[in-house]
């Protein structure tokens, strides 16, 4: 069996995790730029982070036969100061030329503020200008539903096709609107917040397998880099066919990500 974990923050994980993921069948990961758990003190901090994502992580992953791809942006949590955020955004175009960059992400909202929205819109414009795909982070818990709608409206106001945008961290109250508007939807398998493997299987039973994927979003917090193979087992235990399981954990990510010419598995 083989699978893709299309959203995982490997910079926060150990090399052992790469090894275990490879053993569980992982052949590719995509890593969006995100918040490091603390606010960086300068734009230079992001420059170093983008170098880590585009130069160092692909090599570390390759040791275990895993292809590593990335998405670049300033995350919404550090985007509350528009002046600072613009300094960081100015660094991104040069990095878009690196061969493992798939697009702009994970952009979105955190506390659904005007400042966050301004920077979200500027990064949507950046994706438009450079013809990039977009990976979206939606807010946590009580802020998710409101934030997901604001984000979808902002993207719909641009010329970016919804089929080139994945809205991540969907749950039962946001998934149908995301799919109805033509976007792709990602389910994040987290131990306490977001969805469990059981609920991910439930959502597939309710909404089908089209334009849906699942990811571990493994990071520096409580999270599980093996969440995707565990969800595969959960689906198998419940009697889903191997075609269905492969579609949501391999075929769908491959189809969506394959819209970028930089996404090559061979």
């Amino acid at each position, binding site marked *: 069996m083989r699978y893709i974990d299309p959203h995982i923050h490997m910079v926060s994980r150990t090399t052992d995790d790469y090894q275990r993921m490879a053993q569980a069948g992982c052949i590719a990961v995509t890593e969006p730029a995100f918040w490091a758990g603390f606010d960086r003190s300068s734009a230079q901090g992001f420059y170093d982070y983008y170098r880590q994502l585009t130069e160092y992580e692909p090599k570390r992953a390759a040791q275990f036969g895993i292809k590593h791809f990335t998405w670049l942006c300033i995350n919404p949590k550090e985007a*509350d100061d528009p002046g600072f955020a613009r300094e960081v955004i100015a660094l991104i175009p040069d990095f878009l030329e690196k061969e493992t960059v798939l697009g702009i992400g994970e952009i979105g909202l*955190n*506390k*659904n*503020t*005007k*400042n*966050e*929205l301004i920077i979200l819109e500027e990064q949507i414009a950046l994706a438009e200008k450079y013809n990039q795909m977009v990976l979206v982070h939606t*807010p*946590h*818990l*009580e*802020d*998710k*539903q*409101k934030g997901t709608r*604001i984000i979808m409206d902002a993207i719909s106001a641009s010329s970016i096709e919804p089929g080139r945008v994945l809205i991540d961290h969907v*749950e*039962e*109250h946001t998934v149908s609107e995301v799919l109805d508007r033509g976007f792709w939807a990602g389910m994040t398998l987290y131990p306490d917040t977001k969805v469990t493997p*059981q*609920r991910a299987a*439930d959502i597939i*039973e*309710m909404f089908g397998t089209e334009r849906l994927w699942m990811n571990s979003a493994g990071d520096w917090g409580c999270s599980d880099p093996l969440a995707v193979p565990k969800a595969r087992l959960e689906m198998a*235990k*419940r*009697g*889903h066919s191997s075609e269905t399981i492969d579609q949501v954990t391999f075929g769908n990510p491959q189809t969506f990500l394959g819209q970028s010419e930089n996404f090559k598995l061979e």
Partner: protein
Amino acid sequence: MSDSEFTCPQNREEVINTYFMEHRAKLIDVAAYLDRLDRARPVGDETDFRDVAFRNAIAILTDGESQRARRILDLLSDHSTEIPQSAEGMKGALGAPLVAATEGGEA
């Protein structure tokens, strides 16, 4: 429900065989959590908005309607429409909207 709406590959008996023990444990966890709250000294006379929302959400479990997960998540969502300028001084997400305590949780 029509046959096409039975989208779970397992029949009901199989679902129960697979998941009953897991959810029995979670159910007792919820009961024990509420008992723990009974044993805990109150702080002031304010009800906590999260606790109000939690108890309203429990009612959804037994109202006989479907789509319980979606409706509970909806209940636990912020339905305000204003967009504040900055997140400066704001807390992170707490899992329930602040309005739940003042409006009795109807959201």
